[in-house]
């Protein structure tokens, strides 16, 4: 909602407390004949003419909850409080609004009353607002129904459920299968058969690492003489240890952390150090950092005990979560800016960790959930007491720049020397190194030349070309020392290598005043910092007067007694692996969200998750080793007749891969993927300054051609790579726990025509042709195994043979065939 569009916002939204109190209406006193004459002659016609359209019981739509067609009406006031203070025009909102001096409060909204009309109303109020119109019943919207709210399933403590008994005990692998099978059996159905090993190895490898298995990995698994259980367990343990695991599952978390490398909105200034948080997340997943610690560090890492310097630094970087929000840097009102920042933090934390849409209570009591507006401001006080170090400030006046290194956290250890970085840095071949050095030298030369005015265009072209070549060599650290573009000069003074991080720190401890209708200027009561009332049955840690309260917030959030934290996380993991959450609305566990289809299973997983030390890897392991995960997608008509939507999980859901997994699979197929983590930021200082400004034609390189994993490409808000947008990458503006799956023609155009895909197909075809294989049939067999992890059917082989014989050019035919394989739905869907 646009809070600043104020001249129309009069009395619109609901501020609760005025309404909750009983409305007492004074009995109508007798009016003097003069008063009556004045009211009937002047006031009533004026009210009818200018006000009744929106403020009477006859109004099509009552505006602002204010009735002006009865004394009871105006005495009860509107949504934003008292409308008339009898005898005191200057204290009456009605008079203020018709005077048109307050741009937030102007009535009637479309035009101003004449001076004479205004003075009639002023005189009337001055007289004590004598009003003969009585007898109208005033009804008001009810407030929060706390009793009902408390009963909502998601606020009940997590209970350890008993494992249900099933008939077919041969089928179940682990406890969770009992929960799934018992429901299937209760519906009189049976589960689909298991997926074959070809499908299973592809599914589990892509699920855990975001990369397809190699042909030899497929072969090893398919021919493993061990039982299905043992063979799968072996593979899963290897995959969980792969660094690729964190790159995939870290990205899942980055979706809900609304991670981005630029601030977005009006002045889209990049975040040069956001990548440290990104790496923190990936590393945390890889080291299986317990989820409760993972959360606590992101909320209050700066306040937690650290074992050493590096640990402290890591915990500081973790708080980057709070600083990554999308802000409107062009917002000149500092208070508005701060409240918007807090709202981003509330909304992100609420939905990402608790599935609670706290942000809905910023302007009014939550419409669906038991979150009062005062609850919002109570918790918001914690963030108001926190300094958010995003490295950016809103512009007030025009002279200051948006990027402010002083508004960042300083790190003790220069990150480039960090062992974790050097371990993961590029290890180019010596050949490459020489070439990179050469290119870099040339680049420096060009940049020096570019300072003189001649030949700019040609130089630019060559610079772009060199950057592309460097990118292809996996070299992303290109940092011209000097800014080239005068217009962006102040913004470009960014030291990309500085030991700085986005983070949170303690601010001045303060309590926030409630804002009526969310308007910064209209302050209500100051609300002491606290956790939402609905959680009061938990042991809530008291908030200290000398600290922001983030430490306690983290403690509360990660408490075993918190009814939401573990449930929300296990549900996210389940949704990623099974295609749909047990609670389908993964970011909303409130009353407007979906109810769990398997509430006991949800609690079982949550309990087990906490019992096993909040280990995400253990949780994933237990799910992928279950029988449920292993099902094939086979359609069973009898089941479909009862449960077509597969809400019982009687078969595998067909799941489309995310943009990153599609792209990384393509890079793998073309033999182009470099699996090492590129060092530093995913962009260079030439990307500093407002990304929304101008066309930036010099930056024509499409980042998707870089040979790095997709998680390491820049995530500039509003400037995502075309391929990401087309394949439904998570909009990085807010929490996004479940991506959309669209099927639009630009996806087909990308696969059919994009030079990157064409290049991949050519390279993949060359790799297939390189194999020492006897004939086309065998090559086709290999191509299918290589691309889709399975062998072709007879019919498919025949089709491919015909296709390969349509023209004479063998290379081109094979490139077209492999491109067809990569364009097929099968390539981008998990079996």
């Amino acid at each position: 909602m646009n809070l600043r569009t104020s001249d129309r916002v009069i009395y619109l939204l609901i501020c609760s407390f005025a309404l909750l109190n009983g409305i007492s209406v004074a009995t109508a006193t007798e009016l003097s004949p003069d008063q009556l004459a004045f009211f009937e002659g002047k006031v009533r016609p004026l009210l009818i003419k200018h006000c009744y359209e929106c403020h009477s019981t006859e109004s099509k739509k009552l505006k602002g909850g204010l009735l002006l067609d009865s004394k009871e009406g105006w005495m009860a006031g509107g949504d934003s409080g008292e409308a008339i203070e009898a005898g005191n025009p200057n204290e009456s909102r009605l008079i203020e609004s018709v005077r048109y001096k307050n741009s937030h409060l102007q009535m009637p909204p479309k035009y101003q009353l004449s001076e004479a009309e205004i003075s009639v109303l002023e005189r009337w109020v001055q007289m004590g607002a004598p009003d003969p119109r009585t007898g109208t019943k005033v009804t008001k919207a009810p407030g929060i129904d706390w009793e009902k709210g408390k009963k909502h399933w998601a606020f009940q403590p997590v209970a350890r459920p008993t494992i249900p008994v099933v008939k077919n005990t041969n089928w179940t692998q682990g406890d969770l299968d009992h929960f799934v099978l018992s429901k299937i059996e209760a519906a009189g159905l049976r589960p689909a058969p298991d997926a074959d090993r070809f499908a299973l190895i592809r599914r589990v490898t892509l699920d855990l690492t975001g990369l397809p298995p190699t042909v030899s990995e497929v072969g090893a698994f398919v021919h493993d003489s061990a039982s299905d259980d043992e063979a799968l367990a072996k593979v899963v343990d290897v995959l969980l240890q792969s660094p690729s695991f964190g790159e995939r599952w870290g990205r899942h978390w980055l979706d809900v952390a609304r991670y981005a490398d630029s601030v977005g909105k009006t002045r889209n200034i990049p975040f040069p150090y956001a990548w440290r948080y990104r790496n923190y997340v990936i590393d945390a997943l890889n080291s299986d950092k317990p989820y409760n610690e993972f959360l606590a560090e992101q909320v209050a890492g700066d306040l937690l005990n650290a074992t050493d310097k590096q640990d402290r630094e890591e915990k500081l970087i973790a708080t980057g979560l709070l600083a990554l929000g999308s802000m409107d840097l062009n917002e000149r009102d500092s208070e508005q800016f701060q409240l918007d920042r807090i709202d981003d933090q509330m909304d992100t934390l609420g939905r990402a960790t608790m599935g609670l849409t706290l942000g809905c209570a910023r302007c009014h009591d939550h419409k669906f959930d038991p979150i009062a507006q005062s609850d919002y401001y109570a918790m918001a006080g914690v963030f108001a007491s926190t300094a958010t170090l995003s490295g950016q400030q809103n512009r007030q006046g025009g002279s200051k720049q948006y990027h402010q290194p002083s508004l960042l956290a300083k790190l003790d250890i220069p990150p480039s020397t960090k062992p974790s970085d050097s371990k993961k840095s590029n290890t180019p071949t010596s050949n490459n190194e020489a070439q990179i050095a050469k290119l870099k030298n040339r680049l420096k030369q060009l940049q020096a030349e570019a300072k003189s005015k001649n030949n700019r265009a040609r130089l630019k072209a060559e610079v772009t070309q060199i950057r592309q070549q460097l990118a292809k060599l996996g070299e992303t650290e290109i940092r011209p020392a000097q800014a080239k573009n005068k217009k962006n000069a102040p913004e470009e003074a960014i030291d990309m290598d500085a030991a700085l991080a986005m983070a949170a720190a303690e601010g001045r401890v303060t309590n926030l005043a409630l804002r009526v209708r969310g308007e910064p200027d209209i302050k209500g009561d100051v609300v002491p910092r606290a956790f939402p009332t609905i959680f009061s049955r938990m042991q809530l840690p008291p908030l200290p007067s000398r600290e922001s309260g983030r430490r306690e917030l983290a403690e509360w959030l990660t408490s075993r007694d918190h009814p939401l934290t573990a449930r929300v996380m296990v549900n996210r993991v389940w949704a990623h692996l099974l295609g749909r959450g047990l609670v389908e609305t993964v970011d909303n566990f409130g009353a407007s969200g979906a109810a769990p289809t398997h509430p006991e299973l949800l609690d079982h997983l949550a309990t087990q998750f906490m019992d096993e030390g909040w280990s995400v890897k253990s949780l994933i392991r237990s799910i992928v080793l279950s029988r449920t995960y292993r099902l094939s997608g086979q359609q069973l008509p009898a089941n479909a007749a009862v449960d077509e939507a597969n809400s019982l999980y009687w078969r595998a859901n067909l799941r489309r891969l995310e943009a990153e997994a599609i792209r990384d699979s393509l890079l793998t197929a073309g033999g182009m993927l470099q699996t090492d983590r590129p060092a530093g930021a995913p962009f260079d200082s030439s990307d500093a300054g407002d990304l929304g400004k101008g066309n930036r034609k010099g930056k024509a390189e499409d980042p998707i051609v870089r040979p790095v994993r997709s998680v390491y490409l820049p995530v500039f808000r509003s400037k995502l790579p075309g391929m990401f947008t087309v394949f439904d990458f998570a909009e990085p503006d807010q929490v996004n726990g479940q991506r959309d799956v669209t099927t639009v023609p630009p996806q087909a155009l990308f696969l059919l025509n994009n030079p990157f895909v064409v290049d991949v197909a050519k390279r993949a075809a060359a790799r297939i042709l390189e194999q020492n294989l006897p004939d086309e049939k065998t090559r086709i067999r290999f191509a299918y195994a290589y691309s889709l992890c399975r062998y072709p059917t007879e019919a498919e082989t025949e089709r491919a043979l015909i296709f390969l014989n349509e023209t004479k050019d063998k290379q081109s035919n094979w490139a077209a065939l492999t491109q067809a394989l990569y364009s097929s739905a099968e390539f981008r869907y998990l079996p």
Partner: protein
Amino acid sequence: MNTCRNTFTAVTRRGMLQTTAAGFGWLAFAALNAEKVLATPEDFASPLAPKQPHFTGKAKRVIFLFMQGGPSHLDTFDWKPELKANHGKTMSNSDGDKRKGGTLLAPQFQFEPKGKSGLQISSLFPEVSRYADDLCLLNGMHTSNAAHPQATIALHTGSANFVRPSMGAWTTYGLGSENQDLPGFITINPVGLGGAQNYGSSFLPASYQGTRVDLEAGGIADIRNRHLTFGRQRSQIDLIQEMNRDLLDKHPGNPELDGVIQSFELAYRMQTSVPTVLDLKTEKSGTLERYGINQEATQEFGTQCLMARRLAESGVRFIQVSKKGWDQHNNLKSALTENCLAVDQPIAALLQDLKERDMLKDTLVLWGGEFGRSPQDQANSGDGRRHNNSGYTMWMAGGGVKGGMRYGATDETGGTSVLGKIGTHDLHATILHLLGFDHTKLTYRYAGRDFRLTDVYGEVAKEILA
């Protein structure tokens, strides 16, 4: 449409996609009133299939001529004799608002009554003013923010602060498209400010997002196949589709796979339809001349306008063309002259063509920027004006609005709208009304609540309805 809320039991987009058996989730919505689907195969209804609005709207499509930067209403379409009379007068900072202070700068161009209606239009628009009797000047425009980015995004999406679907996406969501070989919403040369937000679909299904056409970059991304002959590509697509159908056989009725198959066919057709519709070579030289495509000053915008006409004729629902550079803090006279020269003749040609084809009656043409400019001189240079969001002008033509009308007004000197005020949400409410929608009922459920283009605001400017 007001039954949307009841129709959708699933609460997420993905949920809808998965649980609706009949194809795409929003098919349920389409099916409420769907016309016969024109050009798609039997058992599949495209999300872009034409849909009936709430009531019969006069406008069937929109062409939005976006003038980014804040064109001066005071020198073009809002005649203020008092401003002329009070030239040089110093205004006080009333209410402590420094924006209200400064020296008044008279209109810099001559105004004259035009057409039978006698609409006052300045000498900057000699060609457009020939269609004065078709124009409905909205002189009472105002918006909440005086900064370009916020105001631009708000104009397109209704919200300056949040990522929301653009009005073109809402329009296409509501009405579908009349041509199944083309996207329903196309934006030509979109401005950088606000970026993809200006034509994004946000939480609406991606089918409704604007497809961008970049004239310099050669049109739509990846629209051309450069490595296979057409026949060879067809045979490649046949191979892909056979694989897709095999997969669909294993997952009968799967809406996503159904969608994949359809998307390849539409993509294949777009490779021909898009370049064809954007190819101006088939136009007569006289037409190109009328649009000014043969002259440097008008070439770029003329090309956009002619393309817009061709897209409109082809059944595209929402077409936007853009012209940047209306931010005249200085060089008011020369820059404004140059800008108006660039757009005047092309716009007139567009209006003429629409009239000749009897399409103006159901095509809403909307002209304007994100805000206007101040009556005060920028820096007493006599040649610049500041931003002004509290009063400015847009105009509409066709699509069910009264022609030859001046609706709303700014105060005497043109700084603040005082009559017939139209804010951003009111503008959107009015456009949706013209298209046949009750703006309070064109909703989409997302993240647990129903969203509208107009949020909780918006009043239709009923007085301008023909």
